[in-house]
């Protein structure tokens, strides 16, 4: 990874980073990678090489140590994404509740396929595995929020709301 350290968290996030590092015994600060990657993704939307380089510098570890973690865990976006990333559950229990049909509707509505971003940069859709909300399926997640018991009509409402 070739990237210069040109970005920085806001001051209050940097304070939080220092607090997070103190959760672990001395010398075990590498444990803070996941919490800090979540903060970084919230800040910059995706984990670009520049972001991973920065996270590595915060923890005084090699950038590749951040990359090998970020590339293992599916929540981290290693490519640019749209403003709203819709993470759609594709696992059995959601499918039983009509998840496939609702997903087809979502793709049609946005005119994109899995992994793609709308041309206006508003929406990206990703298929994810079980989100531990099986009794309330079909389910998708946008950032921290769960949208549950989805129907085609509900999907339209959500997209309308977020398109404003």
């Amino acid at each position, binding site marked *: 990874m070739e990237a210069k350290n040109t970005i920085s968290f806001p001051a209050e996030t940097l304070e939080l980073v220092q607090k997070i590092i103190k959760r672990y*015994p001395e010398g075990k600060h*590498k444990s803070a990678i*996941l*919490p800090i990657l979540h903060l970084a993704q919230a800040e910059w939307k995706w984990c670009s090489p520049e972001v991973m380089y920065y996270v590595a510098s915060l923890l005084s570890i090699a950038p590749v140590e951040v990359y090998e973690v970020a590339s293992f865990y599916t929540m981290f976006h290693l490519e640019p994404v749209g403003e709203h990333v819709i993470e759609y559950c594709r696992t*059995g*229990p959601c499918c*039983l509740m009509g998840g496939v049909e609702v997903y087809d509707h979502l793709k049609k509505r946005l005119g994109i396929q899995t992994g793609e971003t709308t041309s206006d940069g508003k929406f990206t859709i990703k298929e*994810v595995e079980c989100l*531990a909300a*099986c009794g309330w399926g079909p389910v998708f997640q946008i950032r921290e929020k769960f949208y549950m018991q989805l129907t085609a009509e509900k999907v339209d409402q959500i997209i309308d709301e977020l398109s404003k």
Partner: protein
Amino acid sequence: MKILTEHIDVPGIETIDVFCKHGGYQAMEKAIKKMTPDEVTDEVKKSGLRGRGGAGFPVGMKWSFLAKPEGVPRYLVCNADESEPGTFKDHYLMWKSPHTLIEGMIVASYALGANTSYIYVRGELMYVIHILEKAIQEAYDKGYLGKNILGSGYDLDLYVQPGGGAYICGEETALLESLEGKRGNPRIKPPFPAVKGVWQCPTVVNNVESIAATSWIVNHGGDAYAAIGVGRSTGTKLISASGHIRKPGVYEIPLGITVEDFIYSDEWCGGIRDGHKLKAVVAGGSSVPILSADMILNTASGEKRLMTYESLSDGGFATGTMLGSGGFIVMDETTCIVHNTLTFARFYHHESCGQCSPCREGTGWMDKVIYRIEHGKGRKEDIDLLVDVAKKIEGNTICPLGDAAAWPVAAAIRHFRDEFEWHIDHPELAIQPGAVYMRPGASWTQ
């Protein structure tokens, strides 16, 4: 009988004041002020409480394996990486009543002599992490966490660690690797975490529900807990009920009720949705064998099957299944078993960490072969090929994800082979939207 969810619908139960008004933190006080750590462990042993994450290993025994070398810190890590398809009970409990888990964490940490403990929550549940962190701050403010808790001299710090989206991190050694800031590759055992866990220190990893139950056990005694349930299935269990039932949701059941009652009683699932019939159930999360309606309701010897570890596994994999994590997925006659099995195979393919060849390669092959059967491109020999691949994964991997991937495929073929054959023999019918094979004479096609 409710132990974990008695007050879960009380408005404000997520706040420490309301929680305390309903008996909260009494177990913590009793344990820390009136009991020794060994006495707490003894009560948990007496209770017969078994690990609620899926494996069912006795919690008290797991605690007693913890190595206690002088001068080496010990850790309690709560496994809240709930990711097994069909399971959402820990999500529900932490979201609704975070202090139920936090009190259990203090009780269990005290019993184990841990001064720092972590709750490892799957990263997708970031909103639950915020709920837990707020509740933990409340507990610090009350003096229930931190230095010299209730003047006892016992110190405990409690932190929440987010995951990053990886089913494998529910495996305890993968979880510890992840907590160390690494990829979630399971470790070769031994050494077990009880001897060398996080940062090579003795560590106990327990499921959310297991830890939460220890408070009630301290309050009422291990014998009272053991009096609930049947045989070695003591106490209550949170069951995540999903699929084609009238009332999906999380139910706390006393172990020992019949499966039939659980599905059809209005107290629990409320029966199959209107106008439909029960076809199949996955009783304990996606990895346990699927059973047809007749097999889940009754054992091979004709007895009513119970919601217990023993009764659900009665008959072995030939005719039985497992209680697992309690992820109870109900399917009616509109369900295509091949499609459902495909979603599970795809899941395990996606979630395999890639460390062991049988799992890394085998899950991919199962996914691909079932995909082509489902999409009308199946070959006669594919069914036996799937059975063969599943057999070659099972037992040949470092961690149980391999078994978990093999079992649902093997069981679907064992009990619904005719449905796979129909897809291969009649691809033109099978690829029609909503097409489902109707087994002649089956209880769900009458």
